[in-house]
Structure formats: structure tokens, C-alpha cells
């Protein structure tokens, strides 16, 4: 019984962790690309990484917090334009190819030793060089607070403050997407997802709308990057290809083209993985599977779960089955 309670507690702790919030935000951004506009962006991690670098380096160079956030957003904006301007006039596949390679380029450049002064090379940037101004912004009193079994410092690096801001931002973005999804703008994006030429024949500038979607999702991704690195550090290899695929998993799990799907998906993704990992650790003897292997094992099972999901419930948990059955 004690074991179950402990397991439940650790799962809920994981569900509310800042990294979960960051993933949820990243998935919300990806949902704008993939779910609404039908843009196959396989480089969402690059938007996170650019946001993180832009933010961390700016603060390290002495810029105030809000200027640093602005720099991060500008980086993502520029990246979206560089990716989108040449490819969005072409068929969808080209964006996919370009995004995945561009994401790798960003990561490789970030970890290259030539830029050690700026990006810290493959070691990255440690958190204490840039999280000071954010901590200073906290209105919470010093000390720690316990609610139920959630016990954190109010202002620590990984405390209540970052959780409040992280999930607060999730809420803000949910509201934004909800407002956009019901608007004519959202309708137009869905139309483009279905058939560009049809929308073009109705007198709409498809190119501009695709670019708007790419930029919006990218900016949201950059914010996710900032939240992701605030409680830890900037690690170029921690935001690589696999991050993009985890974000996709979260998105598909929750349901693409839904408002709340990406958030639910992100939470479930982390909780499920931890659950598999804990159970494997507790019940499979070390001789069969070591602790390190259980981590890998959890990823394998997540992969299997994703496959089952695509086969048996392609619309995700919150998606509309009817809507998906007409996909051609």
C-alpha cells in the first residue's frame, strides 16, 4: 500500500514538473503547425533550443529579463522565416526535410567548440549564469511551502515560482489557441491543411497564412525552451531530434488539432514513462534489467504505445474520430 501511495505521489510530482509544462507548451506550438495548418515541422526542438540560447546568452551578456525573452522570440521568428520563406511555396514534404536538418544544424553549431565562449560548446550553459533575474522577479516570500505532498522552495531554482509561471503560461497559450481555433483565422488554417489549392482558389493568400502559423508555433516553442532550461541548464544535446519526437508523441497522444490535447498528452507522456520505469525498477530483478536499462525500456514501451495509438486511436485521446476518418 505504501508503495502505491509513493508511486502515485511521484507520478503527480512528475506531472506538475516544470519540464512537463515546457513540453506542454512546445506541443501547443507544434499543434499550431501540425494540427491546424498541416505543416510537418520535424524540428520543433530547434525552436526550443534557439529560445533557450537566445534567453541564456542575452542575460549572461547583461540584458534585462524581458529584453532577453524578446531576443529569444526574435531568434525563433528569424528561424521561422528562414525555414518558411523558401519552402512554404513548395509541397509539404520540403518543409519536413528542411526543418529536421535545420534543427540538427542549430544543435551542431551550438555544441561546436568554436562557439565555446558564446554557447559553452557541448557542455552548454549552466543554469546559475542566467536564472538569477527570473528568480529575482518572484513575489513569493522566502522559505518553502508544502501543499499535500508537493514540497518545494518558494523561490528555488526548481521551486514553486517556476511551476507557477510555467503552468500559468500553459494556461495563457491554451486560451490563445482556443480563441484562434474558433476564429475565421483558425478555420482558414484548417482549410489549408485540407487542400491548399482549394483555399487559394477562394482568394486567400495561403503562403502568408502558412508563414503566420509557422511563426506562431515557433514563438510558442521558444517560450517552451526558456521554461525548459530555467530550472536546469542549456544542453544542446538535450534538445535534439528525440525531443522533437517526444513532443510529437505527446501531441498525437492527446489529440492533434484539439485545444487541450497537447497538454494532456504531455502530462500523460511523462507520467506513463515514469510509471513504466518505476514498475520495471521495482519488480524486474537487476540481473535481468539494470536501472539504466529500465529507462531505455520505458522509451521502448512509449514507442510501442505510440504505434498502438496510431493504429487503434489515430485521433488521440481528445480528438474527433469522425473528423479523422475522412483523411485522404
Amino acid at each position, binding site marked *: 500500500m505504501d508503495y502505491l501511495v509513493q508511486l502515485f505521489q511521484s507520478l503527480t510530482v512528475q506531472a506538475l514538473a516544470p519540464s512537463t509544462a515546457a513540453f506542454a507548451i512546445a506541443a501547443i506550438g507544434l499543434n499550431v503547425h501540425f494540427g491546424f495548418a498541416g505543416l510537418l515541422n520535424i524540428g520543433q526542438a530547434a525552436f526550443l533550443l534557439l529560445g533557450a540560447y537566445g534567453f541564456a546568452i542575452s542575460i549572461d551578456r547583461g540584458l534585462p529579463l524581458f529584453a532577453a525573452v524578446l531576443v529569444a522570440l526574435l531568434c525563433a521568428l528569424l528561424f521561422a522565416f528562414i525555414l518558411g520563406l523558401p519552402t512554404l511555396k513548395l509541397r509539404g514534404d520540403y518543409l519536413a526535410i528542411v526543418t529536421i536538418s535545420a534543427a540538427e544544424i542549430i544543435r551542431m553549431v551550438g555544441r561546436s567548440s568554436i562557439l565555446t565562449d558564446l554557447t559553452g560548446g557541448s557542455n552548454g550553459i549552466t543554469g546559475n549564469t542566467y536564472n538569477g533575474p527570473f528568480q529575482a522577479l518572484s513575489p513569493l516570500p522566502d522559505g518553502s511551502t508544502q501543499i499535500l505532498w508537493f514540497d518545494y522552495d518558494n523561490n528555488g531554482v526548481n521551486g514553486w515560482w517556476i511551476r507557477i509561471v510555467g503552468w500559468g503560461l500553459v494556461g495563457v497559450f491554451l486560451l*490563445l489557441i482556443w*480563441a*484562434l481555433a*474558433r*476564429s*475565421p*483565422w*483558425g*478555420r*482558414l488554417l*484548417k*482549410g489549408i*491543411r*485540407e*487542400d491548399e*489549392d*482549394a*483555399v*487559394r*482558389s*477562394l*482568394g*486567400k*493568400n*495561403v503562403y502568408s497564412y502558412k508563414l*503566420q502559423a509557422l511563426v*506562431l508555433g515557433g514563438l510558442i516553442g521558444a517560450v517552451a525552451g526558456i521554461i525548459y532550461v530555467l530550472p536546469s541548464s542549456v544542453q544542446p544535446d538535450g534538445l535534439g531530434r528525440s525531443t522533437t519526437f517526444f513532443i510529437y508523441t505527446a501531441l498525437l497522444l492527446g489529440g492533434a488539432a484539439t485545444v487541450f490535447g497537447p497538454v494532456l498528452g504531455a502530462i500523460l507522456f511523462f507520467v506513463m514513462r515514469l510509471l513504466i520505469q518505476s514498475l520495471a525498477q521495482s519488480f524486474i530483478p537487476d540481473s535481468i534489467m539494470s536501472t539504466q536499462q529500465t529507462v531505455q525500456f520505458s522509451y521502448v514501451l512509449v514507442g510501442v504505445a505510440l504505434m498502438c495509438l496510431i493504429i487503434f486511436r489515430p485521433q488521440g485521446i481528445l480528438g474527433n474520430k*469522425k*473528423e*479523422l*476518418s*475522412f*483523411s*485522404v
Partner: protein
Amino acid sequence: MSETTATGTQPGYDYDRVELRKKLATVDKAPGSSKPDSILTVDNVVRRFGGMTAVDVQHVEVQRGAITALIGPNGAGKTTFFNLLTGFDKPNSAPTLTNRGAGTARWVFNGRAMGAVGAAKVAKSGMVRTFQLTKALSRLTVMQNMLLGARDQPGENFFVAIVKPLWKAREAEIEAKAADLLKRFKLYEKKDDYAGSLSGGQRKLLEMARALMSDPAMIMLDEPMAGVNPALTQSLLGHIQSLRDEGTTVLFVEHDMHMVRHISDWVIVMAEGRIVAEGPADTVMDDQAVIDAYLGAHHDTDLGDDSLLTDESIEELEAEVKEEDAARVETEHNEEGKA
């Protein structure tokens, strides 16, 4: 309908069809003849795919307020011509940086030059098309499909979209208009269904209704009857004619000769990329060029019947073939001279 009154007052539009036909009766029945009031004038549109010239239209005009049919055998270049006119494809003869002079492609719609204009802008200027293979937006509802067709919805701007009060009023307007159109096309009961669940014929109707949401000055229908059942055909014909009566010029591609005869005021015949004949529906079919295009030039000569092959007839055929060859060489020569 509220829109009817809005469009029912265009100056110069022939609302009276008898008048229009009288006017057209005076038009020279030859390819590229000039019309009394042309809404669309096309010059020098050439499109090649590799060595094959798909479209080579030197000059054609479309009369405002008329239902004009564009017919021709398979592969005549009708759909390619449509794509070129609506900005979905670019002619090889399009003006370039170095050559903007005579001989380059040029077309004028409603007084606006359309040479190098993108598909969206073409549609915005009032020339809206449908597709041969219908493009219903499957995972949107019928109503959403319709609303997408409307113009001047401020909510399609990103920043306006976030604040609902800014676009709510316009949304209500276009929704009412969409409901009107859907009722007319007998799709109103389906308004909340996904467009993907409609039958092929219903999708054709939806696509046409959607195109009408923007009150186009001219609607271009690419095979509106293909795959539509005969019962629905009748009502579609009715819709097309009432469109004309309310102020929309219609240009359509069709294979169904019955339909062409029934509703068109003017017929343009294409073959092998060129316009070979023009005229009212009842006389154009008798044109030798049209019969040649559809049936081949020597369709009534039985080459297998030896008794018919007298020396005289062989000489006649030879002379005819030589003549045709000479004509062909000459036109090719002319073209090369131009290029």
C-alpha cells in the same frame, strides 16, 4: 436573395437573355472574334510541357453576361487553359524581365491586367473557379467550407481573430448568406456534416456554392456535370442559368454536348491547344473544324474499301494532305519567327 439586388444593378450587364443572344448573333463566328462587351480578353497564351504544346491561344474574348462553354476532345488543353487563366499555372509566353513587348501573354479581366497575378489575387479580383476533381475540404463541415469562401472577413487577420467581437457581426452576415446558398443547392440539411461525408455530386454542388460566396463577377466551372447523376444535372443546369440571370458571367468546360446545347449562349471549341471554332451552340457543331477535331479529318473515307480508292480519290486525298502539311509548316514557321 439579398445578394441578387446587390448584383442586379451592374451597368452594362445583359440581364435580358434574349437581348444578349441578339447581340451575340451579330458576332463573327470565327476563332478569336471580338465580342461587343468582353469581360475577359486573352492574348498569346502558350503553355508547353516539354515538346508538347498543350495550350496555344492567340486571341479569345468572353462576352460579359453570357454562358460560354469551352469544349473540345480529351487532351485539347481546356483544363490547362483554365489553370493558366486562374493563376494556377504560368504560361511559357509570360512576359519576362527582358521581354515585355508584343507576343507575350496578356489577359485582361474586367479591365484589370492579369498577366503575372497569383491564384489568390485572381480569385480576389472576381474570377473564381472550381476544379474538375472536386476539392471539398473534407475535414471541415459543409458550413465551414462555405464560410471560407466569403470575402472581407476581418477575423481572418491573426490579431483581429483573437478578439471575437471584432468579427462576430461579419460572421453572422456570411453565415446567413451561406445558409441561403446552401438552401438553394439543397445542402442545408447537411450543413453540420463533414464535407468528406458528401457524395461526389453533392461535393460538386458544395464547391460551386462555396465559389459563389464571394459574389464573383465570373465563375469558371471545370466539368461541373462530371459524375453528377441525371436528376441532379437538371437542377445544376437551373442553378447555372439563374447565376447568369443574377449577374455572374459563366465560363465552363464540359463534355456533355446535351448540356452545352441546352444552356450555353456561346461555344468556344479547342483542339490540340488551339481555338478552332467559335459560335452559338446550334451552329458551331456543324463547323468543319469541330467535326475534324472530334472525329478526325478523314473520318468519312473508308480506306479499307478498294472500290472507293479510285485514282481520282487518291489524288484528291494526296492533295488534301499536302495542303494540310503546308499549312502546318507555315504556322510552325510563323511561330519560330515569333520566338
